[in-house]
């Protein structure tokens, strides 16, 4: 149960918003739930709904609207490579193709060992450092095939 496991974090989040506006906490709480469950599982959604006092349908709707909330289990590392226009002008397309080959999956898929999920994403506000990716929301700038290999090695070992 989130309420027990992450009590302090939940409290901190709720404290940011007026007490009668608990619903504002839905996104921060979903991040917490996602950290705990790996994705926004049905159970997680119902728990969040209970904390903010609304119907689970409303929370599910929020989960479905935003790309950063996952409705299905994802890999331990989620690699989001930007292939939007500015990055694509600097080789992001070919870079993603390389990532796909290297991981043996297509964008949108997870490696069979459950370690990596590869996604392409829209512009992530770092176009001058293309190709650029985020791994579990941390930026990786100025990527090359070689640095991608090194990164995978590093992550595979951890």
């Amino acid at each position: 149960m989130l309420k027990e496991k992450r009590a302090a974090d939940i409290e901190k989040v709720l404290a940011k918003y007026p007490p009668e506006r608990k619903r504002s906490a839905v996104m921060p709480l979903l991040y917490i739930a996602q950290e705990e469950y790996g994705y926004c599982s049905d159970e997680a959604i119902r728990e969040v709904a209970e904390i903010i006092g609304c119907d689970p349908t409303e929370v599910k709707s929020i989960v479905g609207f935003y790309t950063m909330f996952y409705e299905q289990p994802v890999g331990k590392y989620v690699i989001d490579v930007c292939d939007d226009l500015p990055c694509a002008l600097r080789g992001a397309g070919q870079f993603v193709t390389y990532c796909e080959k290297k991981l043996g999956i297509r964008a949108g898929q997870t490696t069979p060992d459950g370690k990596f999920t590869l996604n392409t994403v829209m512009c992530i506000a770092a176009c001058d450092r293309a190709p650029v990716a985020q791994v579990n929301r941390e930026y990786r700038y100025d990527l090359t095939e070689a640095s991608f290999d090194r990164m995978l090695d590093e992550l595979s070992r951890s």
Partner: protein
Amino acid sequence: MSRFYGTKYKTMDRHVLLRDVDVPDIREYDVYVANGGYAAWKKALTTMTPDEVINVVKDSGLRGRGGAGFPAGMKWSFIPKDIFPKYVVVNGDESEAGTFKDHQIIDGNPHQLIEGVALCAYAVQANTSYIYLRGEFYEPAQTLQRAIDEAYAHGMLGKNVLGSGFDLDVHIHLGAGAYICGEETALLSSLEGQLGQPRLRPPFPAVQGLYAKPTVINNVETLANVPPIVMHGAQWYRQYGTEKSPGTKVFCVSGRVNKPGNYELPLGKYTIRELIEMAGGTIDGRPVKGVLPAGSSAPILPAPLLDTKLDYESIQAAGSILGSASFVILDDTVDIVWAARKMVRFFKHESCGKCTPCREGTYWALKLYDKILSGHGTLADVDMIGEVAGQMAGKCFCLLGEFATSPMQSTLKHFRAEYEAFIANHQGGTMNGYADELIREGVIAGPEGVIAHH
């Protein structure tokens, strides 16, 4: 731990906004204060009335840097005086393709943003501020949170700031991947825990914003301008820029140039051509084909317009918008049809779905582009793209849908011949370099014969 962001190109003797270029560690509280930080905040709290703060910002002519260019001081003056609580909401959604200026300000110079937020809050007498950052700014958010914590620790935020009796709380709220949440009313809905879809105006946020209370919404860069304005005055600020576009502006340059990055420049001083030169010129010195002055949302300006000056009025006169000033440079190696499709795909992906023309129009348009890009297009499809864009234009609920027509209409206007050539050269399903991309996006079947679904 987070890696700090920012390509540091020195474009001014003393930067107004990108001060991390001049002072590497200015993100630290002590360094910021040693370099004049929080002096404006002290000055306002101890010597200025809220109205005086509004007036100096009004006089400075500072225009919103989030896209619309609306005068900031004027916006603040719309806030009703007698309704409480009020809110200041900072727009750090920065999701326009090619925009990465707020990213650098938050990461490199966070205290200047916080000080700007504080000044704004004081000016409109709001005691709570939410800084809405796009969900991908998870790392910058940590930097900013650390800076906020420092500001609290030094009594710059919190209860009874500097003994003035003014209370101010500043909170960060992270989005979760939705371009539309940069639109101010969608942002408010998102912050309220509702679907991030835009809402009707009126009522405007100044009257009924967050929690139906009076709310100022400003962009990160806009507010970062405020401390130097309050400190040095409107006249000082107006030494930069033009009469109608005063001040400096961060120009994000990306695409086919050698030194992509953020360039802070006085508005109206340089031309697009000069900006490209500052950014190291195009890769391999190829000729420029066109420039998007505000990412995917702005109509493309073709090469002959490169001598347009970099300010709101000039870019508008040239047929585009300055918006967030995210210059995406396309050279002659870039296939315009492919680039237009990329942008249309962006809008189709980011359409919130609330209104019919945007929801259906972006879907339809992308289908047409898919058909052309995968080598099955006809000239009738090209005309149809124009029709669909025309059918959307002027009918959408918010500007996202209107923006979506820009890449279609402007590339058709300036580069129709390229569309026709593309169709002639890609008959019968040939797609040259685009196969990987089209397979990835589920437009055509991969070698395994499966169509991916997204």
